[in-house]
């Protein structure tokens, strides 16, 4: 009788649960998520250092050239371009911290949620995972745009 009742139930009344297998897989994903976040922070730190040191070096060379009579105090546009590039690098470095924060938050909340069976923490962890994917999607789209611009500039510019 019970079996008959179960089979009579439409599939849509069932509720999806987070099974033990899913929990174990999610826990594994948190470890790798943290590793990716650490890479992100390292890359951001390198980029920050690089952009600041580039800006300082360019400013120093520019000052030297402006004071040097041989160059006649010429203000070359390349210095401005280099400074803008250093600025862009600085902004990219700051932006690269964001997905790392999302992944760390995802990992901590998910572990907490699974260990204490807390639905709120689990929901929040999924929100941060979604944010990380949204960020990655935007980043990928921007990369494609840059590749297209680069190919157009190098291949198209050389040909036409």
């Amino acid at each position, binding site marked *: 009788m019970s079996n008959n009742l179960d089979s009579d139930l439409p599939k849509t009344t069932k509720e999806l649960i*987070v099974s033990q297998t899913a929990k174990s897989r999610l826990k594994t994903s948190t470890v790798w998520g943290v590793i*990716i976040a650490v890479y992100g922070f390292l890359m951001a730190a390198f980029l920050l250092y690089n952009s600041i040191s580039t800006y300082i070096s360019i400013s120093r060379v520019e000052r030297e050239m402006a004071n040097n009579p041989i160059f006649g105090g010429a203000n070359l546009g390349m210095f401005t371009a280099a400074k803008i590039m250093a600025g862009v690098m600085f902004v990219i470095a700051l932006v690269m911290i964001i997905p790392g924060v999302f992944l760390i938050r995802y990992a901590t909340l998910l572990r907490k949620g699974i260990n204490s069976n807390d639905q709120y923490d689990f929901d929040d962890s999924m*929100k941060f995972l979604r944010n990380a994917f949204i960020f*990655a999607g935007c980043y990928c789209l921007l990369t494609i745009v840059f590749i297209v611009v680069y190919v157009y500039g190098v291949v198209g510019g050389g040909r036409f």
Partner: protein
Amino acid sequence: METLDKNITSDSNKGLTVNGSITSYVQTASKWTIIIAVCLFMIAVALIIYSVKSISDLSNFADVMGQNPVIFVGKLIAFVQLIFGAALILPGIFLIRFTTSSKSAFKTLDQGDFDFAIKNMRNTLVFFAIYLLIFLITIGSVVYYVYDLRNSVSTI
């Protein structure tokens, strides 16, 4: 008060469920993962074409100029780029599987599909962590090799 406490305890013992919020978050994530997958495929194809073209051009150049270490390093870099480009197809497949199985899980409430979606999401994260590690080691090795080569050329 006691009744409320009892309810809290029973709720926390109930186990985690896939509620409306999670469904919404995963559905939004799955839309973006499709975009990421398409971008990854495009980047992979672009890298493969570029690497094959570079290797072919360098081979032609070597036929004219003769073999030298610079051409060898160029070919090595192009080959490494080819492998890294081809590897990017794998997370694209994982992400597409994540999207399709999560959509199917929410539509049919199939537990197996949901577990499979989670598995593919985990695989994507595992892949990228290992990919980045190998990428950093490779970049470091190539830079070291080129630097070493430059020193040996300047000594000669």
